[in-house]
């Protein structure tokens, strides 16, 4: 059990529905400070939605999201603006601003939140780019970057304000092995070097298990398991096991609901 | 470098737009920039105003000296009463001037032509022009022509 001051984000009783479908139903999650926490689960369980709820882009139907002492859903505009200074988010597609150069993209949060002089901004941007290994690409436009490079620039932008929390939305999806390796390495190194809390949302078992300190598994609007990677390997649950081992059939069935096979073949021919 | 192109382009665009506005104002619509100051109102009654409309020109010897501001029916005399605004600097219209409704060109619009008389006094605010000539109505002309022809 972790003591209170070790938890940076405390989510209690979170409920959120999109139309008819419940995405979260009374979910409790504790994100430990300074560690890499992974939120995992099958596709469509609302993992990205969770990041948006933490960041205040969406409001939950019920429940609290406590960031230290602040309840995010209840914050006013000004306070939300200040809280966002402490968060950095890496979107799935990188989401670089296409009309600005790499340098301008990374400098953007600095220009919005601070009034630092140009020389300082330049130094900070170059440092962040150096950390992700793209200092030489600073004058390129996003359209000239490869997918992997774009994500690294987006990561540099996410950490440009030295946030307390960095959120990664499916960072490993669709990457070639080298880019994947680079990203995994970066996430780990930055987490250790800068001491921030990392929250990774992913469904990529191998990579995530490699760097996560603590894992939550979501399914059907609830948390079905949580723990360190070692603890989860021993969990006695069909759902968890199917997910962790990547079994094609189990609680999440292989076959889409269909009538009896023989009857279907013998019945309608068209 | 790119920002400079944008700024120059936008500046040129705005200039072109304003230039277009000026062209429209002066060359296309003949906006009269030199305000002739105010004017004084003069009235005239006609049997038939034809196609005369408000804002029509009032001119003397072909030069504009005012414009028609209002047209209404004089219920006592059962005639049309035309109100004209004559420019202040036109102060030489004698009280026996005549006003006729004329047509500019073949299909042109109608205007009021004023021919000054020989009186000592001049028209002032609110005066009436007594000597008027109504607009020519085509049917009456044809009627008159045929009548004359029959008479011959």
């Amino acid at each position, binding site marked *: 059990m972790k003591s209170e001051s070790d938890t940076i984000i405390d989510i209690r009783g979170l409920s959120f529905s999109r139309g008819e479908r419940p995405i979260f139903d009374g979910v409790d999650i504790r994100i430990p400070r300074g560690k890499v926490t992974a939120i995992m689960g099958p596709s469509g369980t609302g993992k990205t939605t969770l990041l948006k709820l933490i960041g205040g*882009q969406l409001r939950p139907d019920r429940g609290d999201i406590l960031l230290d002492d602040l309840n995010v859903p209840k914050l006013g505009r000004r306070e939300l*603006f200040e809280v966002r200074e402490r968060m950095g988010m890496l979107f799935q597609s990188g989401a670089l601003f296409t009309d600005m150069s790499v340098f301008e993209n990374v400098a953007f949060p600095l220009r919005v939140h601070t009034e630092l002089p140009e020389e300082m901004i330049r130094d900070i941007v170059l440092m962040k780019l150096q950390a992700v290994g793209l200092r030489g690409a600073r004058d390129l436009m996003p359209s000239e970057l490869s997918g992997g490079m774009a994500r690294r620039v987006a990561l540099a932008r996410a950490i440009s304000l030295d946030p307390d929390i960095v959120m990664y939305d499916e960072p490993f999806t669709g990457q070639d092995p080298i880019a994947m390796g680079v990203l995994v390495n970066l996430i780990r190194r930055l987490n250790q070097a800068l001491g921030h809390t990392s929250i990774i949302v992913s469904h990529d078992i191998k990579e995530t298990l490699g760097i996560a300190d603590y894992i939550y598994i979501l399914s059907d609007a609830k948390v079905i398991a949580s723990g360190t990677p070692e603890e989860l390997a021993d969990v006695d649950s069909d759902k968890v096991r199917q997910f962790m081992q990547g079994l094609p059939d189990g609680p999440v069935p292989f076959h889409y609901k269909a009538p009896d096979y023989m009857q279907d073949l013998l019945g309608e021919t068209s | 470098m790119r920002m400079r192109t944008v700024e120059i382009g*936008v500046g040129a*665009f*705005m200039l072109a737009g304003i230039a277009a506005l000026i062209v*429209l104002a002066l060359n*296309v619509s*003949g906006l009269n920039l030199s305000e002739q100051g105010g004017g004084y109102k003069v009235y005239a009654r006609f049997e038939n105003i034809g196609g005369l409309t408000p804002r029509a020109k009032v001119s003397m010897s072909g030069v504009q000296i005012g414009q028609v501001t209002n047209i209404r029916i004089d219920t006592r005399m059962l005639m049309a009463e035309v109100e004209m605004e004559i420019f202040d600097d036109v102060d030489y219209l004698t009280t026996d001037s005549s006003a006729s409704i004329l047509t500019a060109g*073949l299909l042109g619009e109608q205007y009021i032509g004023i021919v000054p008389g020989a009186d000592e006094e001049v028209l002032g605010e609110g005066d009436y022009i007594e000597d008027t000539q109504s607009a020519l109505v085509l049917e009456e002309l044809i009627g008159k022509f045929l009548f004359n022809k029959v008479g011959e």
Partner: protein
Amino acid sequence: MLNMLQRLGHRTLSRLAALGRASQILFQSLVARPQPLVMLPLVLKQIWFVGVLSLVIIVVSGGFIGMVLGLQGYTILVDYGSEQAVGQMVALSLVRELAPVVAALLFAGRAGSALTAEIGLMKATEQLASLEMIGVDPLRRIIAPRLWAGFVCMPLLAMIFAVVGIWGGSLVAVDWLGIYEGSFWANMQQSVSFYDDVVNGIIKAVCFGIVVTWIAVFQGYDCIPTSEGISQATTRTVVYSSLAVLGLDFVLTALMFGEL
């Protein structure tokens, strides 16, 4: 039967909801503390994309329409012996109707669809969400400059269209068909009134600019963030803008010129 009624009701309600959302973003984008230092460069850049880059199609179309007006006008009027009036015909048609309306339609097709596609793509690539997470309101930073640029550019483009059209008409009538230059311009100046015709035309163009830009920006902001969604939104921009311009034109014409 019941199904049809239900679908009709559903569609009406969703259109109303869309109108509500559209009004909301219009209000939220425009009504805020002005920040000229930040906004001005953004607006200038948008005026470039929305206005300056539309100049080519506006000038070419204006020129051709003016020339056709001159040609057709002459052909029709010469039967009545009134070919001298071709100048005022071209000018009045352009200034009162064709310049604001056609320029607005072209604007909707070129700039409107570009705005919708751009904003839709920003939504699909999560750039708008990124802005929000960094703490910048995308309505103020992305939408508002584009709205202001559209409002400013539309009347300018309409006036340029009118002037180029009149020049085209004069080219055909005076240089080609031999109308006397003096009477071409004199007749025009006599019958085109600045306040009643030119200013009304400009007012029309301003209204059209507001409507077209608003529709374009809303469709992009509200679209389904997939490639199919963006293409649907772009189509909707062009169709709705065009219909709105034509409908609004009738209303405005009736109001402005109805009593004349």
